[in-house]
């Protein structure tokens, strides 16, 4: 499945190591359609579709949820085998299939495979997400220089275009692969799966996945990471967690970068934390500056703590 359009034809996504030429992908994109036997002599009509799972206050007393009275559908999340009803009329067979299938189920399945792959190799995988320009790559460069060897840092770089970030990471001293998503606004689990294979991950390494700079789309796509780290910088608004709650709700750690600039900007660190805690009370915070090194030891400590556990 292609992350941009889901079509399975991902020719425009490239995976390159610094110094490597552009290698295109060639996929034959074919769909085979099976034509069923349309000769039917049935005359009966039967419906046995499973139509449950829409409960309204007036017809379901078993559930005493507070807001049923407001009149919206109350949906249950539990999984079950999907029902399959079909009727035969003059228009031909009509099949009603109760799928109850998560739209992102394919991505989630691949993400779980990645998670198993990482787990088997004892690899700590961190998904770094932020707006463009918050300093993800700078933090990574500094991290690789300071603790890259001891935690066996390897990097997957996600950007729409260019090898620039991969070159920076390589100079800092870590194995890296650049995923260029073309028009894609996020990395997905399949891209990470392919990139991780190309990286030839070693046991006990730490995989830093630098997602495409975007605080919206990457939040929906599980990559199979152990932890998600959201990064904001003090040159952004301190209400960013309120503006992009989905991302802050899905992360475990928030790095507040560029704190060396705090005297010159209006960013209120406590306000930003309060905003983020409103959607994610379990979120941890580390304030740091990749430029001056302030607070970086706390971040290294957080990573090393995870390596131990």
């Amino acid at each position, binding site marked *: *499945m*292609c*992350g*941009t*359009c*889901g*079509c399975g034809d991902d020719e425009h996504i490239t995976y390159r190591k610094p110094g490597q030429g552009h290698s295109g992908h060639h996929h034959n994109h074919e*769909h*085979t*359609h*099976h*034509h*069923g*036997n*349309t000769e039917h002599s049935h005359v009966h009509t039967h419906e046995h*579709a499973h139509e449950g799972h829409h409960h309204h206050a007036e017809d379901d007393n078993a559930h005493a*949820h*507070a*807001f049923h009275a407001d009149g*919206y*559908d*109350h*949906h249950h*999340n539990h999984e079950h085998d999907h029902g399959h009803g079909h009727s035969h009329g003059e*228009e*031909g*067979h*009509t*099949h*009603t*299939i*109760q*799928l*109850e*299938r*998560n*739209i*992102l*189920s*394919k*991505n989630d399945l691949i993400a779980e495979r990645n998670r198993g792959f990482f787990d088997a190799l004892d690899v700590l995988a961190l998904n770094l997400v932020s707006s463009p320009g918050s300093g993800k790559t700078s933090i990574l460069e500094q991290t690789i220089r300071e603790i890259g060897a001891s935690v066996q840092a390897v990097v997957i770089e996600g950007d729409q275009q260019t090898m620039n970030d991969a070159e920076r990471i390589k100079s800092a001293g870590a194995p890296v692969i650049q995923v260029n998503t073309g028009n894609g*606004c*996020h990395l*997905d689990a399949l891209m990470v799966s392919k990139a991780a294979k190309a990286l030839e991950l070693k046991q006990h390494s730490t995989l830093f996945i630098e997602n495409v700079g975007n605080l*919206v*789309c990457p*939040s*929906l*796509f599980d990559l199979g990471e152990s932890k998600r780290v959201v990064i904001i910088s003090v040159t952004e608004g301190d209400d960013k*967690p*309120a*503006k992009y*709650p*989905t991302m802050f*709700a899905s992360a475990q750690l928030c790095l507040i970068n560029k704190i060396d600039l705090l005297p010159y900007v209006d960013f209120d660190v406590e306000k930003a934390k309060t*905003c983020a805690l*409103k*959607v*994610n*009370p379990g979120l941890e915070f580390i304030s740091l500056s990749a430029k001056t090194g302030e607070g970086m030891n706390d971040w290294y400590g957080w990573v090393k703590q995870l390596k131990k556990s």
Partner: protein
Amino acid sequence: MHELSLAMNIVEIVREEADKIGRCAVKRIDLEIGGHSGVVMEALTFAMDEAIKGTPLAEAKINYHWVEAVAACQECCQEFKPTEFDHICPHCNSMQTYLIHGKELKVKSVELEEL
């Protein structure tokens, strides 16, 4: 913009079901979209209109069921409607809350007609 990815995933899921039956037209698709799923409905409907072109889904009636977010408080056990940027319990001000509904992104059902 991730709505286009979602739309193409929906097309793929429905196409898989259609392929199981054989030559058929997709008459109806029921989708369930949660209020806190991170999806902009206008973007999704726009993306769906594009994604179904030239597929067996092209003539399908697509029903979008919007599921409002509901959260519950672990402290006082009451339910409430959280806003997207504030999940604090309005009854006891606890932050220890969790979403019961609102994350849904689902193909609920499809109706296929054999040709």
